[in-house]
């Protein structure tokens, strides 16, 4: 049960129930779709990029608590950041959730996103947490093909 609390932290449950920045963004100049065909999670990320700044970001779609909370918290964290900063956050996040669970966890620079550290104990759920990030990256890179967690 303690592992489960570690995974389903209060913050995650809150973002699952009340996702922030949920919906479409009519002014978006970047957009991408992401799919996890194994579990059926679907996400669309809308981004309004002004030069190298993430002015606004929204998401919609359906998925589990981890994927929804991850997308919600990602949008909160990257709004107002530069594309370089957002990418750095993505790399740190990915590093954290895919790191070896027996090693001490490195949450440096992740701030609130460190609540997802528990995901690394559940290999099946890592893709739930990272789908939104891959989709965001695809959007800002003007990738039109749907992002898939499986090939």
């Amino acid at each position: 049960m303690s592992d489960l609390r570690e995974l389903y932290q209060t913050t995650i449950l809150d973002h699952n129930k009340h996702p922030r920045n949920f919906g479409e963004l009519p002014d978006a100049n970047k957009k991408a779709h992401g799919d996890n065909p194994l579990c059926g999670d679907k996400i669309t990320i809308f981004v309004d990029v002004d030069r190298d700044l993430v002015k606004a970001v929204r998401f919609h779609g359906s998925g589990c608590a981890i994927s929804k909370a991850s997308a919600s918290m990602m949008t909160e964290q990257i709004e107002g950041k530069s594309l370089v900063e957002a990418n750095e956050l993505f790399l740190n996040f990915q590093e954290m959730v895919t790191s070896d669970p027996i090693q001490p966890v490195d949450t440096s620079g992740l701030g609130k996103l460190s609540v997802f550290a528990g995901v690394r104990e559940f290999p099946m759920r890592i893709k739930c947490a990272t789908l939104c990030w891959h989709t965001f990256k695809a959007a800002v890179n003007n990738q039109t093909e749907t992002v898939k967690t499986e090939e």
Partner: protein
Amino acid sequence: MIKSVSFKGTSYAEIPFKFEAGTPDIAGIIGLGKAIEFLTTIGINEVEKHESELLRYGTRLLEEIDGVHIVGVAPKKMGILSFMIEGIHPHDIGTILDQEGVAIRAGHHCAQPLMERLGVAATARASLGIYNTTNELDQLGHAIEKTIDLMS
């Protein structure tokens, strides 16, 4: 399968052996034999009886938990219990039940058109077999209650 191979040429065995390349699935065949033996020892009618008893027990159990909905209630349904818990995604149910020692399947079950027809993204599904017991169904019930408690 071949008859003979040399640098001059290759000849093949007679049909059907010609199409049997490599070592056949011997372990699989022996396994199937053992499975048939296991089922015939118990008797297929006993298997069916046990499964339908479990199904009846499990259905009643899940129906009594607030927020749980059973998907699929055909009268001659086999030993499967597909269900939803209000507000909780089946993959979260799967992870939590797993931690509670209950293995189920969660997802679209390779039946996406059916999920679309039912208007759901995924379902959770417990499969009942001759090797399951009513105690295990009670364990499933407790684990579902824990899931609801944890996710609320």
